């Protein structure tokens, strides 16, 4: 139970960073932390008590042990790829924003309002 609460606390840390920080790069890092929390929650839901890793090896039999669920691991792999792409695009946008505004501070980038 405490593991799930800590995972939720990680999600809240990410949201806090996204809302409060003023530097563009710290906002990007906070959105990455939120993604890690969601991936961690997916893997935590896949655990079975006393389970083995879900790989068949030559010469070893599984017997009566259970294996942990392998499907959320595939979901997490896909999700990591997607977040890699999002982070790359956010970094490219941050570089172009710096080139146009000469600052990384979001309180000074205010061309669009109303």
């Amino acid at each position: 139970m405490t593991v799930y609460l800590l995972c939720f606390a990680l999600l809240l840390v990410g949201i806090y960073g996204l809302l409060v920080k003023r530097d563009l790069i710290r906002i990007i890092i906070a959105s990455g932390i939120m993604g890690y929390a969601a991936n961690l929650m997916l893997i935590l839901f896949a655990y079975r008590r006393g389970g083995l890793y879900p790989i068949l090896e030559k010469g070893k039999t599984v017997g009566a042990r259970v294996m942990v669920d392998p499907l959320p691991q595939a979901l997490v792999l896909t999700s990591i790829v997607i977040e890699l792409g999002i982070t790359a695009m956010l970094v490219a946008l941050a570089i172009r924003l710096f080139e146009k505004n000469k600052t990384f501070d979001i309180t000074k980038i205010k061309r669009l309002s109303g």
Partner: protein
Amino acid sequence: MNQERGLTLIAKTVTRISVWLIILYGIYIILHGHLSPGGGFAGGVVIALAFLNVMLTFGHETVTRWLNIDFLHDLEPASGAMYLAVGILGIAISGSFLANFLSKGTLFNLVSSGNILVLNIIIGIKVAMGLFTVVWTLAVFRLYEGGEE
């Protein structure tokens, strides 16, 4: 060798030897995707990081001379189209998109489990080229202030 760009002489000498080992490790992870953890994406990331290692140590002009950047820029959508071609072959031969049409082989062999080996290799190439293109574009843009879109 130029001493002004890149890191020190020790880093350059070690990189000259170790980059080939890193690429070999990446190819191992890609090829054994159906037998052990890893697969196309993880191996592709390792190969892209090998090229990034050379770019960090030697400077990006050396990498532009060492690799053929235009060919790598074209290889990425080509491997994406090959993935779709494998899927369409599945429709033509077995009736559903991405259906298996190679033989499944014996268990625990390297060349077994049909389509998965081919798809792993295609994904490995695409991820490696894509990730390296992104990093190379970001590095080159910084130097030519006012780069293109």
